[in-house]
């Protein structure tokens, strides 16, 4: 009996041993031989991957030096339904109508009847608060998808400077377009094992966690009050004379910072579907080169003073006409003939005076190679006309200043350039170049970026000097005084008393199919302002145009300059003298 029992135990032990061996072999096969296959299968079932979206950087303007949010992000929700499982379709529609109102799709009730589908969007851009109210109703079959949208609390303000973000999340035009990568940031990644409800778990050793890098919060140099007033003054000025298009730049000549940049017509970035013409997206102050006209006479005079070619009291014989090669150049304003000073030439905006400066740069009677080379060096290299300024905005145009080495860069071309014809440049180039002329000869890189926000603190960027010897301090002072006289000599009582304001008119002919037309001119005004015997506080440039209208700088653009200038003196709290 004992022997029988031992035998049974041995048999059982052998069976168990064999079974264990089989298990071991099977486990070896599964865990070692087929490891990769089963690991892959397990991963595909358990591993989940989430994109951690980076938050787009917000944009601030300044309000007397204090950052103020101009473009924000708002969390919004898309409300969707699974019609197959929805139990109370009428209640869902009722709640969404009551809470989400205009965000509800007009055919939402019909969408819920599509019970053969599993996903129907009922409402978009639902705010966080609205989403919470809807969730409270515990409506079975509803889902919420989180998203972000740009919000523009100031509406149209500086819209062409800001640009906008398209449906794919990409910045277009303006700052949004130019600094898209910087504002976008970098999405993060979370890869980990998840449970059936997609809750990420810390199990496993192959988890990946790369945090998102949010976009840079950027502070603009735009002062929102100056911007708002500039836009208002431009709009009012245009409406007063019935002109259709206008642009304005307000700049700090001591730093190159753009304080305001306005264009009309304009648009509201939050109502893109209402924009009638995509041309409204363009910032014409940087992307639409034009013939600047007589504003450039300030540049020619500055060059003449700096090279020692002229002084403000240098004289020449004005006959209202001057010969350059085979062309006769005439003054727009005739009658101030005889021996007159360069100050007179600037006051009356006489083309003959500017051509005379060019001739004196040459051999006294001709615009020689030396005169053209010198002019190109001053206009293009020093005052940077016809070059990209590098401002942090999309679609900047370089314009064109013909070099003397070019076949078209002849004496006639350069005689025209002396009074602002024969070249295409942008308003920003003119404003920045003019700033360097009146600030003592330092060209600051025009910028729209004042700094960035870091942990809630404003970190300012320093102005960037491109060139410090554009013209001498003496030539700068003399030019400033000449431009001051050119304004106050004709218009004594338009500026607030006790300040030092100067400016120059410009009236440019318009080219149609390569030929100047007589029924359309562009009016511009370029000037500065500030306290007496103090560095200028601002440079303002105005440009207005309208199809079929002959507009003049002194009649149509100057009043807008004067309006903004007088307001700026008060806003900047500049103390008058005398």
């Amino acid at each position, binding site marked *: 009996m004992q022997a029988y029992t031992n035998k049974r135990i041995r048999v059982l*032990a052998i069976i168990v041993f064999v079974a264990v061996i089989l298990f071991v072999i099977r486990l070896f096969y599964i865990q070692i031989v087929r490891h990769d296959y089963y690991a892959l299968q397990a991963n595909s079932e358990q591993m989940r991957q989430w994109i951690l979206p980076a938050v787009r950087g917000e944009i601030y303007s300044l309000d007397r030096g204090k950052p103020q949010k101009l473009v924000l992000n708002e969390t919004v929700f898309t409300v969707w339904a699974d019609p197959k499982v929805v139990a109370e379709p009428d209640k869902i529609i009722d709640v969404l109508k009551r809470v989400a109102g205009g965000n509800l799709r007009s055919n939402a009730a019909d969408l819920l009847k599509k019970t053969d589908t599993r996903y129907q969007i009922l409402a978009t851009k639902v705010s966080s608060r609205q989403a919470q109210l809807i969730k409270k109703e515990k409506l079975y079959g509803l889902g919420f998808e*989180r998203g972000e949208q740009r919000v523009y609390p*100031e509406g149209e303000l500086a819209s062409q400077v800001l640009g906008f973000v398209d449906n794919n999340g990409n910045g277009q035009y303006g700052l949004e377009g130019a600094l898209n990568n910087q504002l976008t940031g970098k999405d993060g990644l979370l890869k980990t094992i998840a449970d059936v409800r997609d809750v990420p778990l*810390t199990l496993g050793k192959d988890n990946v966690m790369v945090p998102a890098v949010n976009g840079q919060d950027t502070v603009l140099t735009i002062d929102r009050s100056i911007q708002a007033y500039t836009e208002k003054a431009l709009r009012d000025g245009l409406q007063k004379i019935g002109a259709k298009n206008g642009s304005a730049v307000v700049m700090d000549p001591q730093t190159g910072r753009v304080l305001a940049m306005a264009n009309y017509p304009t648009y509201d970035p939050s109502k893109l579907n209402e924009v009638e013409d995509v041309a409204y997206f363009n910032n014409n102050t940087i992307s639409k080169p034009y013939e600047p006209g007589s504003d450039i006479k300030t540049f020619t005079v500055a060059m003449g003073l700096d090279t020692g070619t002229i002084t403000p009291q240098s004289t020449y014989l004005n006959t209202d006409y001057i010969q350059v090669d085979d062309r006769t150049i005439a003054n727009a304003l005739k009658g101030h003939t005889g021996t007159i000073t360069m100050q007179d030439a600037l006051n009356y905006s006489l083309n003959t005076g500017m051509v005379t400066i060019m001739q004196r740069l040459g051999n006294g009677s001709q615009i020689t190679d030396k005169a053209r080379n010198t002019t190109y060096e001053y206009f293009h290299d020093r005052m940077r006309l016809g070059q990209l300024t590098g401002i942090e905005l999309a679609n900047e145009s370089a314009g064109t200043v013909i070099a003397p080495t070019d076949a078209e860069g002849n004496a006639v071309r350069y005689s025209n350039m002396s009074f602002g014809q024969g070249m295409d440049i942008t308003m920003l180039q003119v404003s920045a170049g003019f700033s360097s002329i009146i600030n003592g000869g330092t060209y600051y890189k025009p910028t729209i970026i004042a700094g960035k926000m870091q942990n809630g603190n404003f970190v300012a960027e320093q102005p960037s000097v491109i060139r410090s010897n554009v013209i001498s301090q003496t030539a700068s002072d003399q030019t400033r005084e000449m431009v001051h006289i050119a304004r106050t000599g004709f218009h004594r009582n338009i500026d607030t008393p006790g300040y030092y304001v100067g400016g120059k008119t410009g009236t440019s002919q318009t080219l149609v199919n390569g030929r100047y037309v007589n029924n359309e001119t562009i009016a511009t005004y370029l000037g500065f302002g500030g306290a007496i015997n103090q560095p200028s506080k601002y440079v303002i440039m105005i440009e207005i145009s309208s199809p079929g209208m002959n507009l003049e700088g002194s009649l149509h653009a100057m009043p807008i300059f004067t309006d903004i200038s007088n307001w700026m003196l008060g806003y900047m709290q500049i*103390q008058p003298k005398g």
Partner: protein
Amino acid sequence: MPNRRNQSMRTFQSSRMNRNYNNVSYVSAVKLGPVTHTVLVALMITVLGLIYLTQATKATGYDYAAQEIDTKIAELASQKSSLEVENAKLTALKSAQNSSVAANMVAPSDVQYLPQ
């Protein structure tokens, strides 16, 4: 009395503590066969395994708590962004210009500057 007892114990130990001499001999009344041993070992392994699993999955409990906190943070962040937007709209220039405070403002009749 305790001293005497200790003394006798030492005597006993010293007399018995010789090389290759069994001090204690114990035979259990319960006899365990090989199957019982196997089962006991299996049970011990199972218990240890369960303890390991309990500890290993304990971290998962924190994951759910962390998930709830993350959800709460996201909700609060979205509420914060909504409030910021509302604040920005209320402090926008147009809102300020259209406010009752602005409507009651009057232009200064005269401005005096302090000497610099």
